């Protein structure tokens, strides 16, 4: 198969590094940005880094039952539900405060 030639010079550590970099970028976004919608997008980015890692491991380990790919499938389900509920919460917060800035949501502090 054509694709198998690629994997002769490519081992699992390259995919590990790629997903670690993606996860760290998402983490940086969550720490740095204040817009709640961009925060949700960074969380999606982190979820996708994990998905990519799972598919890579599933392929490299010769997963006969496609268990890794099934897990990615369920992560996608949870991510879709999370995005829907999160965006609904953001819309509600915007309706009450006219902002989506998370640093203003500190009324539990005092």
């Amino acid at each position, binding site marked *: 198969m054509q694709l198998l030639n690629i994997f002769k010079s490519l081992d699992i550590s390259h995919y590990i590094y790629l997903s670690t970099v993606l996860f760290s970028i998402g983490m940086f976004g969550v720490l740095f940005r204040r817009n709640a919608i961009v925060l949700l*997008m960074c969380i999606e980015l982190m979820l996708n880094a994990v998905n990519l890692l799972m598919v890579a491991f599933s392929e490299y380990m010769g997963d006969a039952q496609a268990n890794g790919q099934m897990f990615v499938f369920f992560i996608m389900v949870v991510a879709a539900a999370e995005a*829907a509920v999160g965006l609904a919460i953001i819309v509600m917060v915007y*309706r009450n405060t006219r902002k989506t800035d998370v640093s203003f949501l500190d009324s539990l502090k005092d």
Partner: protein
Amino acid sequence: MMNSLFSLPLPFLVLSFITILCALYVVTSKNPVHSVLALILAFFSISAHYVLLNAQFLAIVNLMVYAGAIMVLFLFVLMLLNLNKDSEPVKSKIWGIAATISAGMLLLVITAAFQKSGVAIYKGSADDIGLVKNLGRVLMTDYLVPFELSGILFVSAMVGAVLLGKRESNSESLLDKGNS
């Protein structure tokens, strides 16, 4: 290090550069709409990675669910809330430095942890492992209970989203009172 980096296969290199550049743009761009578009591009390149990794059905699902549905939802919310301009106040420099250091430490620790681990040999799965025929059979036999549970999760998420997003009749008057 650089030498070994450029000896990698070209498809992997190009896709990885596109993915990482788009992810960086998502995080750093001031305009949220540009972030959404860059994130869609990042999802496309991750889907291409899935095709490389013999997961064809997941690649299509990734495109449809993430790049199609979720990102359109994000775009709609951005347009609805009229946030498609540079409205975000800039955080102070201290925050930027602290976030950079934290994310860099995370990257350093995880990569350092993987340094000592043994490298698995490529075993490879069957060619048709990622096709819908095989995945559907596994989903309907081994993963039947999680499948049904995710249906319940979807229904509850949908009900929750509608309930949260519904405009209450007296909330508007409360807001007006607060403003005046």
